[in-house]
């Protein structure tokens, strides 16, 4: 476990003080912020010999975050240049590799572009794995989650959606197919106005959903769709919720933050079904299921077709997921129960992997490898 709110000051800050006291630590606070004003610094001007930027919470978007990276290089680390000034103040030559950036995304063209532009060396660890371990701690010792072997499955899926605008429009594209296929008799939430972009869904459809009948398909649905007992699309990142709906559903449709391009960036959302003891279908970038399996989790290829994870075309992958959901939704209640029962061994493995400390051990090894590379 890492106390995720203290990962910079407690874990990373103390490591730097003990092991790399001449390394300047730069990170973003509060959680989720990416703007230049949210940059925080721990170090000593004219004494530090190198620096590291932890940009590990949000996925990198060059168009959005360039001002933040510029501030790091042009202001926060301005005392590292020019080279003769560095020599004069530190009494040694500037290292060949100046500047490190740590992210929580793998195989990322955006990270590669940032490193090329700013001359930084990239490093990786899975921030959101640690966040989930901290945020979802203790639910294995609450009485809120119906044990998997006691569940009576009546619905196909549970699919919460909150932010649907901007770079989350892949959620609208999946919802398009769900509405078009009339799979609406499941637990689905969808706002009428995106709570982050503050734009009406009609505008978001025009911006992010290319299907010509999108307005008509969404027009058939009485938006907003809320989960039972909820309204206003509350933010639940740091808690588990929807326990009754989870106990009633065959699977959880995880609509991840990133589902376009080649990078691998999974967030706490993927761990919700794992902690709720549910199977899942994962709307994310291609290869995300394989990425998750590389951390010791198992998925459900023995029960349904998971080849959607290998489809590189983003729109075709969304369509393949929708087709899978349609197929599963067409099964009878008894068949859904059978499918759920077939998934239980994997569900149990994933739950134990998360809560027994094995996942944490893998993350800790990875984390220390990342630190050793700085």
């Amino acid at each position, binding site marked *: *476990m*890492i*106390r995720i709110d*203290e990962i910079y000051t*407690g*874990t990373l800050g*103390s*490591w730097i*003080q*003990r*092991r790399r006291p001449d390394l300047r630590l730069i990170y973003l606070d509060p959680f989720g912020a990416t703007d230049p004003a949210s940059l925080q610094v721990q170090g000593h001007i004219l004494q530090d010999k190198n620096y590291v930027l932890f940009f590990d919470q949000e996925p990198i978007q060059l168009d959005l975050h360039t001002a933040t990276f510029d501030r790091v290089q042009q202001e926060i680390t301005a005392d590292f240049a020019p080279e003769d000034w560095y020599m004069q103040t530190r009494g040694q030559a500037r290292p060949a590799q100046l500047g490190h950036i740590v992210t929580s995304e793998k195989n990322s063209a955006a990270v590669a572009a940032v490193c090329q532009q700013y001359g930084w060396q990239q490093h990786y660890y899975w921030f959101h794995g640690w966040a989930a371990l*901290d945020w979802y*701690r*203790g*639910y*294995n*010792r*609450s*009485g*809120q989650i119906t044990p998997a072997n006691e569940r009576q499955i009546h619905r196909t899926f549970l699919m919460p959606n909150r932010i649907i605008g901007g770079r989350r429009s892949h959620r609208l594209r999946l919802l398009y197919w769900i509405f078009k296929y009339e799979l609406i008799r499941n637990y689905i939430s969808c706002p009428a106005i995106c709570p982050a972009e503050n734009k009406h869904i009609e505008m978001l459809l025009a911006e992010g959903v290319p299907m010509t009948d999108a307005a008509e398909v969404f027009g058939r649905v009485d938006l907003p769709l809320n989960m039972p007992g909820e309204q206003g699309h509350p933010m639940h990142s740091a808690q588990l919720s929807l326990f009754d709906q989870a106990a009633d559903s065959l699977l959880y449709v995880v609509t991840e933050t990133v589902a376009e391009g080649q990078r691998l960036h999974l967030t706490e959302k993927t761990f919700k079904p794992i902690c709720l003891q549910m199977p899942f279908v994962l709307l994310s970038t291609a290869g995300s299921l394989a990425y998750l399996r590389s951390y010791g989790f198992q998925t459900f290829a023995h029960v349904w077709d998971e080849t959607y994870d290998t489809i590189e075309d983003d729109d075709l992958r969304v369509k393949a997921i929708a087709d899978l959901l349609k197929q599963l939704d067409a099964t009878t209640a008894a068949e859904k129960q059978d499918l759920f029962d077939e998934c239980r061994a994997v569900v149990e493995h994933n739950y134990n992997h998360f809560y*027994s*400390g094995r996942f944490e051990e893998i993350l*800790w090894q990875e*984390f220390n490898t990342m630190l050793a590379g700085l």
Partner: protein
Amino acid sequence: MIRIDEIHENTFFAWLSRHRYGIRSFHLHPIGASKPENIYCQGTELAWEHNYITFFDVEPINLAKFRSTFDKIRYDLAQDIHIRRPHAELGYFVTSEHDSENVEQLCSIYGWQPLYYFFWGWAALDWYRGYDHTFLIRPPETRKITHTFLAPNRITGGARSHRLQLLYYIFKRGLTDNYISCPSTCPGEHEPIEIQLWPLEQQYPDIQAVFAQQNLPLNMPGETGAPMHSCWLSLFREAETSLLYLVSETIATGRRHQLTEKIFKPICLQMPFVLHSTAGSLAYLRSYGFRTFDTLWDETYDDIADDADRVRAIADLLTDLDRLTPAQKQDLYDQAQPIIEHNYDHFYRGNFGTILWQELTGMLSQVAHDRPPALDHNPPT
């Protein structure tokens, strides 16, 4: 791990709703509250409750101080259940006090069945999570011991005056070249320490003079105002140069065992400890799988039933240890490392949590599954 802020609602009440339908549940909210207006009630909406349970598991039982809270539960909030079932033995009372004369007395007054689990073990597991994955704590094998003990003291008044008794000996014997904090005005009772010493003057006639020689408040390096650190670890620098942590527990008088999060601070900071609490507290801690330090120094203070004699014995032990040379202190610390490592691993690797979970589920299983069917078939009006 249990999310300690949610233990009553999401662990206990969720369990009761699933396994003992029809039990009304009371707890005090927020954590640490004890007044009648802080009673939080949860019930089953669709059934007539046939029994009730009170979780008073945070604060130690003080019958005189909290009588109005217990009366409110028994004669107001649960009165309808007693009227409905006049001949039944009703009410469970859950505390974090083991072998407690106070709990026994309270339950005999109200007719409640006492139940026990170690709330503070769970609180510590949650509050001190993750420090094993920081670099704030210097590994034991690299420590240089320069001081004998680290003794933080915050609240010193009222029911915590046992701390003043131990500080009296520490000051009188000149053991002040250690890390000690002591406020000049108690932040809990808001009384100057001179006033708090009055009740101790008969027992320790020179106590005012001894304290007057100190330049109070005593603060830890870098601290002012006796800050509250219950839910964090702190004092890392002081910990890594001290032979042991002197734990001044919340309770140190009477027959009962109630250890709090304080005892887990040295365990997580990878330190030996001397425990100022009620008699038998070290044995109580060992019953949860932790080890103590009787192979290194005399721990018979734990067997002394008389509270004042036990304080003196602890002070004698500290005096002996403080006389050691730095090399001898270092040697003692090095000898303690296998125990330190055991305790740290026991806390952070899940074994302690497993023991607590068995205890907690065992405690819940004592709540009877005895809902009278008639209540559902012929609900009273």
